[in-house]
């Protein structure tokens, strides 16, 4: 950070300085990959995420039990290291005797589906509105800005809960409702980047060669937003996952008996003074998943942001 600042202040960008006339620097993608290789946060985040993604994708093969199968005689078993734990149930069982490990593995599926789904819905809304507001400006921009002010003013969790309650509880509804209330970040970044890019000379050059406004917005401006949008996307996936967990915890998200980590915490809460692992384990799973996504997002940002002039 400071080094970069120092270099910027010195007026010597490393790229121009390093270049020899007959040897080119790295292309942006290669440079980003090179930086990525020495970025610990990004590597750790990506590693954890890959492992969890594999579990989520191959849950039917990797989970030892059916996550919905109740086995009342075996209820409330502690994890294998606890007193009375059984190897058959590595992480114990819940109040209905369902295998906790299997439910956790399937829970990763739910969390990731909802995280990616909701972040995609938000991205579509936010980027479209941001491009329109930033590129076309005028009254459209003001209208979009007003919409943002309204969205920010509403307590979003309350709104989500009300919406889910009114529309009905299901995975799809949760995805769309969370997505529809999490587009402001995309919009703000897209809009300001578009405003900046709109004034760039390559946009004027495209006008001068006869391109239409729509062509320019999609082919010249949008590719330049890709990196920033990717960063926001990862961070919004994390936010959506936490939101879903909160909703399910409050009983207004994923309906029972689907194994959502938030719901599992809510169910475990009844017994948390005596069987704390019922609450601790899904919480740790959530924490690890979200921190991995955030590390990845921060890493992608560090790696793709270049010291470019302007």
């Amino acid at each position, binding site marked *: 950070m400071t080094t970069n600042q120092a270099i910027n202040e010195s007026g010597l960008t490393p790229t121009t300085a390093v270049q020899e006339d007959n040897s080119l620097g790295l292309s942006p993608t290669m440079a980003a990959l090179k930086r990525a290789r020495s970025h610990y946060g990004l590597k750790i985040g990506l590693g954890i995420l890959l492992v969890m993604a594999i579990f989520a994708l191959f849950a039917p093969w990797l989970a030892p039990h059916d996550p919905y199968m109740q086995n009342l005689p075996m209820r409330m078993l502690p994890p294998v290291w606890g007193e009375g734990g059984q190897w058959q149930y590595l992480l114990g069982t819940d109040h209905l005797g369902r295998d906790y490990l299997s439910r956790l593995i399937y829970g990763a599926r739910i969390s990731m589906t909802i995280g990616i789904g909701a972040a995609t819905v938000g991205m579509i809304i936010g980027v479209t509105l941001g491009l329109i507001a930033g590129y076309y400006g005028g009254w459209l921009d003001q209208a979009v800005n007003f919409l943002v002010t309204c969205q920010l*003013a509403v307590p979003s969790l309350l709104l989500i809960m009300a*919406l889910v309650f*009114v529309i009905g509880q299901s995975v799809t509804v949760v995805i769309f409702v969370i997505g529809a209330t999490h587009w402001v970040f995309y919009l703000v970044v897209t809009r300001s980047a578009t405003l900046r890019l709109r004034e760039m000379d390559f946009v004027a050059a495209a006008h001068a060669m006869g391109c239409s406004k729509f062509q320019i917005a999609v082919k010249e401006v949008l590719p330049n937003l890709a990196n920033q949008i990717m960063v926001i996307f990862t961070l919004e996936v994390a936010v959506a996952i936490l939101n879903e*967990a909160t909703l399910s915890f409050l009983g207004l998200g994923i309906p029972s008996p689907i194994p959502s980590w938030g719901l599992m915490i809510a169910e475990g809460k009844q017994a948390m003074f005596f069987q704390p692992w019922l609450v601790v384990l899904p919480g740790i799973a959530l*924490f690890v998943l979200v921190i991995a996504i955030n*590390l990845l997002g921060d890493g992608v940002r560090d790696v793709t942001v270049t010291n470019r002039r302007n």
Partner: protein
Amino acid sequence: MLTFILRRGLMAILVALTVSFGTFALFHYATDPAQTIAGEDAPQEMVDEIRKQYGFDRPAAVQYFDWLGSALTGDFGESYFWKQPVVQLIVDHAPVTITLALASLCVTVLIALPLGISAALKPNSWVDRFALSTAVSAQAIPNFWLGLMLIILLAVTFPIFPVSGDATWRHFVLPSLVLGASSVPAVMRLTRTGLLDVLSSDYIRTARAKGFTGYRLIVQQAMRNALLPIVSVLAVQLGNKLGGSVVTESVFSMNGLGRLAVESIFNSDIPTVQSLILIFVLTFVLLTLAADLINAWLDPRIRMG
């Protein structure tokens, strides 16, 4: 300055109106209040009777302006579920939430500002790294889960604080910590980058060339500029804390507006939900307005428009 206040005030009113209309429309078209009041199994005639009696058969716009008109005079209607005036409900539940929000804001400020400032003053030092990893972790911890963990640790294993309720100040310690922690990452990061930006600015270089250094440089030259984004983010966070109280109050079983909102939603108590959302929006809008005014006072560029 006066036109600035007027302009911002007008905007605030517009936002509050739009949002309240939005929530009204949502409930109007998605639920049947008559059915709710009558109960699930009530006969059709009874539902129709109630619909007529309460005026639910009138056009939506008429009902909205009717409700808005009463709301402006301080009459938010009567709760379908609790069967008492919504105003009374809000007045009863507000103190807990307000106390919680303010206490948790103090927690946020006391953790985030010192961390953010010291991180910015010594970038890449161990303080900076500690601050950043705190932010990354705090961002990833599910807020309700943090509450449960604190209960297990500080109320059950080591019974220092009560598990739930809102009777004494001791009841507010854990909830304030939980709710305060949720805003720490955002406020800390913003403080850090804001101050870093200011410190690397041209005018700070000018100030150094004039002979400013050390605390004088920070306090007399940089602070005022660095405060601008912090004021805005604190207002937004305080507003969010009102909404965030939904979770915290549920975890700690506190009788505040958040829990009232959750229960009203569960019971389709439209007048209460709608009034609560309006109150939250108005508070948020007023808070950001206040932040804008403070910033206008701090920064002549905003003041002079």
